[in-house]
């Protein structure tokens, strides 16, 4: 029983104290552990756990197919996707490349033509300069997924150089090399899916702001005004918003602020109209249309930058300190052992 309940608590408290005070202890091993190894250990444990997660996901998808639950046909796709990724990661490198040794100088242009048949070459002149720089041994920048396509290409260019050798990128590097089967999967399947899911946010941001930015109370109005000013101020169209529109809106804003103080609606209405007439008149008099003498406060990008640099930064700082204290208190409760999630 001790091993199951008390031991984990001892580990958590011990490791917590050791790492917290390890930041201060003047010992290179301790400093090394706290600054580097602690998170590396975590990354290693997390990498082992990933297989646990993948197995759980697979079990559920297979169960769905076996029991023919609703939408079981799609689970086959999930299982196939997982198998394909494991195949491209562990069993099939698909990263063949070709190196040429001592290319005959006059064949360089022909070589570039051959390369452009299998790969888009956006600047042939530069490629020629690159090859001339390393005639002794040059690796063709094209990675072939299948060995057969690499062999076929090496046959077509056999006359170019003294000899043409085929090679395969080492295991482990094949995951990062652009052109291998794994990177093909990354660029043609994984990336479109993840960046399109990300792009869905553009639509959801619109529908969320349409529904949420409503003048319900004063706070919601602040949310709305700050949002709109930032939205328009940060893009070039913000430049085109004329000064008189900004000044009129400002007068309306001030009017809304003082509205509760003035019960007589007619007087309030008069003040607002007076304000608009005054500001517009002043503008025409001092010829604010010329950008040079228009007061900075009336240009929307400046307002948005001010809102962004000061009130928003203040709000961010308050939340940041609040969150930091929340994390500190929670960490302290964990180190004291009075709050345990395991």
């Amino acid at each position, binding site marked *: 029983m001790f091993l199951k309940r008390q031991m984990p608590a001892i580990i958590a408290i011990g490791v917590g104290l050791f790492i917290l005070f390890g930041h201060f202890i003047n010992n290179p091993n301790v400093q090394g552990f706290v600054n580097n190894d602690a998170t590396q250990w975590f990354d290693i444990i997390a990498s082992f756990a990933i297989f*646990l997660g993948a197995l759980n996901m697979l079990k*559920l998808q297979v169960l769905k197919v076996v029991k023919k639950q*609703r939408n079981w046909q799609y689970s086959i796709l999930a299982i196939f996707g997982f198998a394909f990724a494991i195949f491209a990661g562990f069993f099939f490198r698909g990263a063949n490349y070709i190196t040429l040794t001592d290319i005959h100088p006059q064949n360089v242009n022909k070589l570039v033509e051959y390369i452009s048949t299998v790969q888009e070459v956006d600047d042939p002149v530069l490629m020629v300069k690159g090859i001339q720089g390393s005639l002794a041994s040059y690796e063709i920048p094209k990675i072939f997924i299948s060995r057969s396509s690499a062999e076929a290409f090496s046959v077509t260019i056999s006359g170019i150089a003294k000899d043409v050798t085929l090679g395969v990128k080492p295991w482990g590097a094949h995951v990062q090399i652009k052109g291998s089967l794994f990177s093909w999967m990354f660029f043609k399947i994984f990336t479109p899916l993840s960046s399109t899911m*990300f792009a869905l946010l553009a639509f959801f941001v619109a529908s*969320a702001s349409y529904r949420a930015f409503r003048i319900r109370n004063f706070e919601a109005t602040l949310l709305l005004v700050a949002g709109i000013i930032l939205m328009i101020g940060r893009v070039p169209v913000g430049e085109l918003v004329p000064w008189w529109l900004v000044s009129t809106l400002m007068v309306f804003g001030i009017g809304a602020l003082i509205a509760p103080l003035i019960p007589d609606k007619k007087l309030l209405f008069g003040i607002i109209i007076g304000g608009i007439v005054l500001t517009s008149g002043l503008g025409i008099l001092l010829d604010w249309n010329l950008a040079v003498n228009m007061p900075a406060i009336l240009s929307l990008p400046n307002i948005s930058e001010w809102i962004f640099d000061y009130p928003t930064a203040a709000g961010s700082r308050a*939340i940041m300190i609040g969150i930091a204290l929340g994390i500190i208190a929670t960490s302290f409760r964990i180190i004291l052992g009075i709050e345990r*999630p395991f």
Partner: protein
Amino acid sequence: MNNKLLVISGIASFIIFIYWATFGSWFITGNAPTFVGVIIVSATIFYYIDGAKSGKEIYLRPIPGLKAIEEAVGRATEMGKSVLFVPGISDMDQVDTVAGINILSHVAEITAKYETDLNVPTCRAIVMESAREACRESYLRAGRPDLYYDDMVHYISDDQFAYAAGVNGIMIREKPAACFYQGKFYAESLLLAETGNSIGAIQIAGTGSASQIPFFVTACDYTLIGEEFFAASAYLSNKPELIGSIKGQDIVKFMVMILMVSVFALDSLRQLGILNFDILVLLGLN
């Protein structure tokens, strides 16, 4: 009561004294203010935990989001729908996730009592394991171990948007009546919150990710903002020592504010030439 204060502050200043004495030999230089900060913060919170344990009454202002949790699970029970709990997309190395799992154990206790179907999709395998531990224990505490089954907590994918796509799929097909988003979130927060809104679920969010709070505030019914999220599990447990730590946290916050005001005041006086020492250099923060 105040002899406790003497004892704790005595120990704290003794530790700081040892630190000062062996500064440079036992302890490295360069982060002295942080060390003093750690000791003072720990002593303060410990003092209030100790105070709360020995029966001192502590007032905690209501947090709207927390009262709504029970109500949301109740509504899901009436409609015979499930409750969805999303513990964020970070791993257990983030304290936000640890706080999210603590809130999950309280929600699981309520779903056990109400016999509602609970669904917890996770983005990390380690979070899946500790969420299972938390749920098993909560169902045990609520006296309904029979209702607990391991796959109530299941793994979807480590990738941020594959996870969001999977959770969206669960939402639109199973239409849970209550959705909880408690943990660390990044850009996918609005994907989840908008989908939850489109199926008409009550949504209660809580996160320490400052950049995602605006989306939760606009798209969810209740949002625990930053520090409220970290205080939530202490609120819900109403164990004396946890509530004491909230009071301690407040006092530390008060100290930070006093420090900021004094730094501002002393620095302004220095700029105006009245004082000649630089407070920041004194505190080692320059």
